[in-house]
């Protein structure tokens, strides 16, 4: 049976050059990057190259990149590390109600510790109003954390405007952006966006799982979450996952090369699918028209997400119901958008990637139609 993978926002397959680089690191370039001898230096040099590659994709200085075990760790480091470093400067954190669970949970923890957390709500289409974020920022606001692209519906947040607004309101407030879903799909420039911190992850850009990074603008103090040696300027000590980091670097370089073409192709696939779905009265499209084409969130009211998902899976199609990390639990994002419970219960997320084709769109639509016809529903 043909594999039709339409869950690229959950994770992506590793691009062959990245996989090869990882393998080579594992079997030949296996030195500890902190070792003083040549074997260690070789591994360190490969990490330096990966850092440079990622910095190029993010348009920042390599010294501003700290490698972590993934996006979740980077988000935790950003929120908890900045809050701890700036505890004396204020007491408020501003974020949105549609962040990834790692940002949400870190913000909840800060709230428990006594911080005031403001969660700006999206409108029914999933948009966040930059003015509302700005309004929530006051003299005691230490950090604003907003994602760039929402992982469930694909909405693109107005990060440039948000940063400008925050700077006017309070020049001391730091801005963090979870760019995990945006990397490789939108051109991102840390410099142009004037961001202080940003999170990225390898496994969303055809790199290996287990590697992510936190961009920290030069001069900003973040306290580490784990303690130990001197690696990553002590911000993230521990022997580096050199193989995975190198894979990340290769994936980053490829992402830069393919960005425009991937975006074009994926936009076409999204359009094609929307067209077909529009002619199916039982299907509701949740993602707004201006969302990132890579993500298409739909609902088929009356058909439970998980049931439809398994039906599709039997036909070789992988999509998401809710967000992957919550293992199928109800989407807090769709609820925050104020969507009707029937839509939330039947939501499916289709997410396109570099290796999807028109045939994938065809097969998905056909299978969905079949599911609608054959499955028991309310």
């Amino acid at each position: 049976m043909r594999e039709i993978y339409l869950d690229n926002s959950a994770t992506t397959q590793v691009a062959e050059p990245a996989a090869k680089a990882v393998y080579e690191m594992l079997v030949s370039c296996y030195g500890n990057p902190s070792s003083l001898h040549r074997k260690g230096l070789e591994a360190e040099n490969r990490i330096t190259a990966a850092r440079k590659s990622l910095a190029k994709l993010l348009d920042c200085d390599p010294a501003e990149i700290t490698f972590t075990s993934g996006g979740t760790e980077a988000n935790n480091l950003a929120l908890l590390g900045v809050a701890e470093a700036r505890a004396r400067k204020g007491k408020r954190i501003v974020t949105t109600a549609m962040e990834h669970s790692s940002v949400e949970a870190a913000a909840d923890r800060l709230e428990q510790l006594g911080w005031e957390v403001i969660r700006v709500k999206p409108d029914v289409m999933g948009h966040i109003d930059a003015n509302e974020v700005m309004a929530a920022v006051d003299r005691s606001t230490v950090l604003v954390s907003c994602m760039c692209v929402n992982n469930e519906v694909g909405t693109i947040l107005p990060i440039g405007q948000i940063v400008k607004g925050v700077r006017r309101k309070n020049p001391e407030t730091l801005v963090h952006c979870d760019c995990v879903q945006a990397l490789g799909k939108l051109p991102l420039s840390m410099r142009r966006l004037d961001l202080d911190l940003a999170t990225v992850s390898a496994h969303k850009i055809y790199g290996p799982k287990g590697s992510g990074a936190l961009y920290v603008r030069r001069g900003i103090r973040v306290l580490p979450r784990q303690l130990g040696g001197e690696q990553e300027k002590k911000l993230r000590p521990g022997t580096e996952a050199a193989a995975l980091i190198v894979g990340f670097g290769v994936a980053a370089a490829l992402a830069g090369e393919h960005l425009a073409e991937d975006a074009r192709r994926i936009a076409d696939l999204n359009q094609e699918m929307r067209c077909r779905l529009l002619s199916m009265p039982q299907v509701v499209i949740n993602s707004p028209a201006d969302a990132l084409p890579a993500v298409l969130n739909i609902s088929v009211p009356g058909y439970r997400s998980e049931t439809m998902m398994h039906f599709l899976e039997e036909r070789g199609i992988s999509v998401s119901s809710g967000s992957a990390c919550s293992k199928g639990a109800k989407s807090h994002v769709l609820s925050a958008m104020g969507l009707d419970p029937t839509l939330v219960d039947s939501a499916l997320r289709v997410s396109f990637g570099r290796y999807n084709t028109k045939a994938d769109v065809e097969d998905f639509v056909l299978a969905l139609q079949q599911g609608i016809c054959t499955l028991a529903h309310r």
Partner: protein
Amino acid sequence: MKEIILIKTGEIALKGLNKSSFEDVLVKNTKWRLHSLGQFKFRKAQSTIYCEPQSDDMDLDEACRRVSHVFGIAAFSRARVAAKDFEDICENTLDFLGEELEYAATFKVEAKRADKSFPMKSPEICRELGGRILERYPHLKVDVEHPDVLVMVEIREAAAYIHGKQLPGAGGIPIGTSGKAAILISGGIDSPVAGYMMAKRGLELCGVHFASPPYTSERAKQKVIALMEKMAEYCGRMKLFVVPFTEIQEQIRDKCPEELFTIIMRRFMMRIADQVARKQDCGALITGESVGQVASQTVKAIACTDIVTDLPVFRPVIGMDKREIIAIANEIDTFETSILPYEDCCTVFTPKHPRTRPRLDLVEAAEQALDADRLIAQAIAGIELVEIKR
């Protein structure tokens, strides 16, 4: 939206008959620096150089950042290009400077009319444009003394230019206008700063580094390369000559009195650097020596090392405190790399009690035990050349 970069030359404007050739070097250097961003056209007019991007989607932010590191530029600014038509000028002014004006309290309009065929005279332009600005931003007030925003409009032959905020340039004079010099670079904090300071006065640099494996590591060499790559941001491309120094250091240790180790080592370094410099057509040597910082850098000690070369030795940080040197190192982003802890050869065979006021005759006598010419020739024969780019 067409934007250009306006470059104001500083000292060059004072160079009289040489002005044109200095400017040519500046244009050449700037062209080279911006080369990877795309094509730029350069035009000279009085003390301003107009730098025009030839394609629409040029990364002008990055271009400005690079321009701010080119020596020979006193100040620069971005300018929006408008048609020589009042409405177009107004529209572009409001668009280009809109954000600044929105958040400012006061402004002033200045106009220069180089093209006398333009129908409005300068005071009229100021008045009318000022009026339009006040219409759009009624919260603003005019302040002719210290305005928050200075709206400068220049009407020239080709177009009208609306100037943005003027930003400071790197100062100095263009690299290459003062000739070449060889810098002894150790990987410490001082030598990159010394290099930067001399490059600022127009010197093209090449580096000389002494490596003593296995006493010093490959990482130490990489650190020096990384430092020079940081310096290249200001100094342009450079050649780095890595000199194998192990045998010389071991010979000194075996045959010379301990308290003279460092001073004799530094004399060998200067002799080798002198030869490399001459071969590369350099007119001077540069070191990061500062008086009193370490035992080998006392006045008498420096006199002992100075004497082995006929070339002038520039020591730009000789009168500076460590604190001041570190401030510059941070500015040029070499400090963090300099403090990486890889052993460099100067510290390898440190005497327990170095002679701080060496007598030249005794030093020369101690050196007799060594076959200096052979050692130096061998070291020079084993030099590794590394090309440094940004």
